[in-house]
């Protein structure tokens, strides 16, 4: 993206040749390699190791990382474009990439020491290994104060006990790292001191449950993680002690742009499928797409997908230009995830009874869309954040 910032709010969203070439490459991969498998993956819930291997070869896991760490030397916007194109046909594959990069590798890149980066990044950026991030716990995700997992420093090692809930990519055979947030002491004003610790997989005392039975994202690996007396070296502290939650929130700021891209992909997939179906399906002697009621639905869906895309492109452009982007990222994530749900509902409606059958892509999109309003900060959290950025009283 040519993020030329010419004035307070003037941005140039046109993709440069390289970003466009990447986008069309991933589009082709998604259409030819992922789409034909999506329904079967959704039905079986099997993690698509072969597709992940192809994505590794294409360098998708290394997109926003420098070459010295095995990355592709691209930027975060390149990652977002890849995620959008994957999500146009399948959200499970898209979230696997999003979580592996944003939650698995990015914290190490942003907050890791030289040694930590050298140890972990080359395997994570090449997709040889996958990392996960465990923040959410059975008793709370939004509220950091609810963190119960504890890490106790004793004689040069951390001893970690606790449980993490809903952790993406926690139990694949490629998973080598789970970074967890844990209470490491009492901070200022009696508040909990929360830090992040790198936990290698496997580690004695670390176990993952069988995958959850989810409403959507069936082929994405989501599990509960238990830590029972897991011992790791003191040097596995990631970032400053006591900054665990704050650091994670800053990771989420950019992660929101990627989730917005994923939501836009799904919203666009709904448009693609609806145009196809409305052109073929006959009712009352004509294709249903000839009826204005259907045309308007699809036109509105396309408008929503387009606007949400502009919103995430804008947030990404600001981020790449080194400008403040927190508010725009929250707006993009909030809007894109909500319109993804709307588009999926409307696309299902256009497909009639077929839209309610699990093998229909739009039925899958419908089930896959809801979590977008929940993961990586709920819609309520995004609104709270935007309100705070607007300086409203009490925020």
């Amino acid at each position, binding site marked *: 993206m040519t993020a030329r910032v010419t004035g307070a709010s003037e941005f140039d969203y046109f993709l440069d040749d390289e970003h466009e*070439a*990447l986008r069309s*490459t991933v589009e082709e991969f998604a259409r030819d390699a992922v789409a034909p498998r999506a329904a079967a993956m959704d039905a079986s819930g099997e993690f698509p190791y072969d597709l992940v291997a192809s994505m590794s*070869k294409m*360098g998708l896991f*290394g997109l926003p990382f420098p070459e010295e760490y095995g990355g*592709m030397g*691209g930027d975060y916007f390149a990652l977002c474009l890849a995620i959008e194109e994957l999500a146009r046909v399948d959200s499970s594959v898209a979230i696997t990439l999003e979580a592996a990069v944003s939650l698995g590798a990015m914290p190490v890149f942003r907050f890791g020491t030289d040694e930590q980066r050298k140890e972990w990044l080359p395997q994570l950026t090449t997709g040889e290994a996958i990392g996960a991030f465990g923040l959410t716990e059975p008793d709370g995700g939004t509220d950091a104060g609810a963190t119960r997992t504890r890490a106790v420093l004793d004689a040069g090692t951390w001893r970690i006990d606790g449980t993490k809930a809903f952790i993406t990519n926690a139990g694949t055979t490629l998973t080598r790292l789970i970074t967890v947030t844990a209470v490491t002491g009492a901070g200022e004003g009696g508040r909990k001191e929360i830090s992040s610790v790198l936990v290698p997989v496997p580690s004695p005392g670390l176990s993952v449950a069988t995958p959850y039975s989810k409403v959507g994202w069936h082929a994405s690996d989501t599990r509960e993680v238990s830590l029972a007396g897991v011992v790791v070296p003191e040097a596995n502290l990631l970032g400053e002690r006591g900054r665990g939650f704050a650091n994670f929130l800053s990771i989420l700021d950019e992660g929101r742009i990627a989730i917005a891209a994923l939501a836009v992909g799904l919203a666009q997939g709904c448009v693609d499928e609806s145009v196809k179906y409305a052109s073929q399906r006959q009712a009352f002697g004509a294709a249903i797409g000839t009826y204005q009621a259907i045309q308007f639905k699809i036109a509105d869906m396309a408008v929503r997908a387009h606007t949400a895309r502009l919103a995430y492109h804008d947030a990404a452009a600001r981020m790449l230009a080194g400008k403040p982007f927190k508010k725009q990222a929250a707006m993009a994530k909030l809007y894109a995830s909500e319109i993804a749900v709307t588009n999926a509902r409307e696309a299902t409606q256009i497909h009639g009874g077929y839209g309610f059958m699990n093998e229909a892509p739009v039925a899958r999109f419908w089930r896959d869309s809801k979590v977008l309003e929940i993961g990586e900060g709920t819609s309520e959290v995004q609104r709270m954040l935007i309100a705070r950025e607007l300086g409203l009283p009490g925020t």
Partner: protein
Amino acid sequence: MKIVVTVKLVPDTTADKRIDPATKRLVRTGETVLNPFDEYAIEAALQLKEKLGAETTVTVVTMAPERGKEVVRKALAMGADDALMLSDPGCEGSDVMGTAYALAGAIAKNGFDLVVCGTQSTDAITGELPGALAEFLGVPGLTYGRKFEIDGTTLRAERETDSGFLKVTTGLPAVVSVTKSINEPRYPSFKGIMAAKTKPTTTLSLADLGIEASAVGLGAAATVVVDSAERPARGEHAVVKDEGDGGKRIADFLVSRKLL
């Protein structure tokens, strides 16, 4: 070793093709993709380069107007080293012989040990170019290769036929065309896409190659499209309902039409 791969710009394979009733030629506006068959040729050349080492180079050559840069860029992003683009208004309307003649000029000028082609293009689908190219270059042509290997200056290939395959051998230099069963073409990586920016593309005119305008283009075409018609709507057809013997009934039908 110098490997040359021929690549072609073709209409988007997912879009409907249309013939202009006035010119009787394929409508080529909006064409944007690399001929899918050529991806197998590029992949075969790149695998050979990976095996043979650094002194081996892969050059892609195309005859195309300016927008052919798109497909060249994709080939370079996949890993080819450089590109030759024969871009000359005089080439317009060339038939397969004219195209092969012009490409042979560009390839001969560049120098080559091996030319790798896709079996056919998705627009014209003649499958004749590799053979014509070998003829104009004056070297052996080995078409429909599903597998090939180089041993010194010997080329060994398995040639697909309707009923099986032939094992054939020839010396280099040579032209081969490869089928889709030969490999699984790679997708360009972002690093490859970035690297393609700095790889050299040489644009050539017919004059650069010393080719007379009368040897190529519409005027030189040995074949003339006399007429074209829409494909007739699908006529009568039989639906075989499977009641346990569906396979046999379809086979019997095909046998009755001498298709099996």
